[in-house]
């Protein structure tokens, strides 16, 4: 009987996606009631725990260098293009360094270490 219901619902192509979302939400609500924990708290825990400390350490160095490299390459390219030799490379290496710091800050911000 349950399988029959499923078939009927999925064959109604027009509202198939909607009803699936609705059934999923209903099922999740039922599960929440059973386990006595909310969905929000699990996703937040997932956010915090999604790095092992070692994985994070591997990340940080390259995050910082990569933005600087992109900045220098962009600056060099713009200089070659516009013929303004030292202007853009200076500007973009500074911005690249700042972007690298931003990357590191964002990587560390959510980590629980």
């Amino acid at each position: 009987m349950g399988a029959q219901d499923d078939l009927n619902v999925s064959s109604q192509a027009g509202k198939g996606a909607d009803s699936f979302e609705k059934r999923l939400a209903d099922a999740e609500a039922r599960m929440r009631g059973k386990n006595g924990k909310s969905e929000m708290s699990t996703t937040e825990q997932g956010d915090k725990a999604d790095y092992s400390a070692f994985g994070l350490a591997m990340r940080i160095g390259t995050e910082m260098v990569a933005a600087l490299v992109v900045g220098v390459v962009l600056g060099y390219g713009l200089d070659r293009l516009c013929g303004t030799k030292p202007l853009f490379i200076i500007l973009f290496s500074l911005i690249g360094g700042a972007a690298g710091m931003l990357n590191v800050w964002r990587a560390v911000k959510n980590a629980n270490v």
Partner: protein
Amino acid sequence: MAAGSTIDALGQFELHPVLGQIGEALRFSQSPLFMLIAVVVVLAFLYLGMRPAAVVPGRLQAAAELGYDFIHNMATETIGKEGTAFFPFVFAIFFFILAGNYLGLIPYSFTFTSHIVVTVSLALLVFLVSILASFRYQGFKFFTHFMPEGAPVFLAPLLIPIEILSFLSRPVSLSIRLFANMMAGHVLLEVFAGFTLMLAGLGAFGSVLAVAPVVINVALTALELLVGVLQAYVFAILTCIYLREAVAH
């Protein structure tokens, strides 16, 4: 590769045609060969693992299910509800890189993840998918992310270039991290193996000393096993994080 008194640590990364005449004609080198092997290994692992489909899984089936669950949890917990849509993509990326890293540790094999061409291609694929997903889920609201909310307007000329550079640095950091880690590991292994040969060439006393680099190489191989899975994990989790930002709001 390390003969006599020189150590040719980078020779292992050279590409040569394989499979004789056919490989010569097709310019088919070790790199695509080992990619094919990696794909076959992953598919065989999943197919053979799940073929019994037992309620109480055997070892191989348990491993396949663990791999599936691990990535599925990673995708759904990091990306959110839309994670199921991207799960096959993340799964493929993780196991392709993992298989590549581990295949490279087998003697006489080749590590295709130690070539920056390969890692850049993978990183650009992730980058493009995340951009396309951004447009799909957010439309042109995507561009508002380059201006942090609540920042004073007069700082915009400074903040927007920084945000754009930070965004553009994603594929660079993804690709450099994987490539550099794999290449550095294999260079180290080669260098210490070279030390062993050089010491062994010094006579009886040298042969005794030559044990030390072998011991280090054993330890390095263990480290490489860790780095191999960790790099695949970092690549996959960053893919998830970029996709989460793409589908969010």
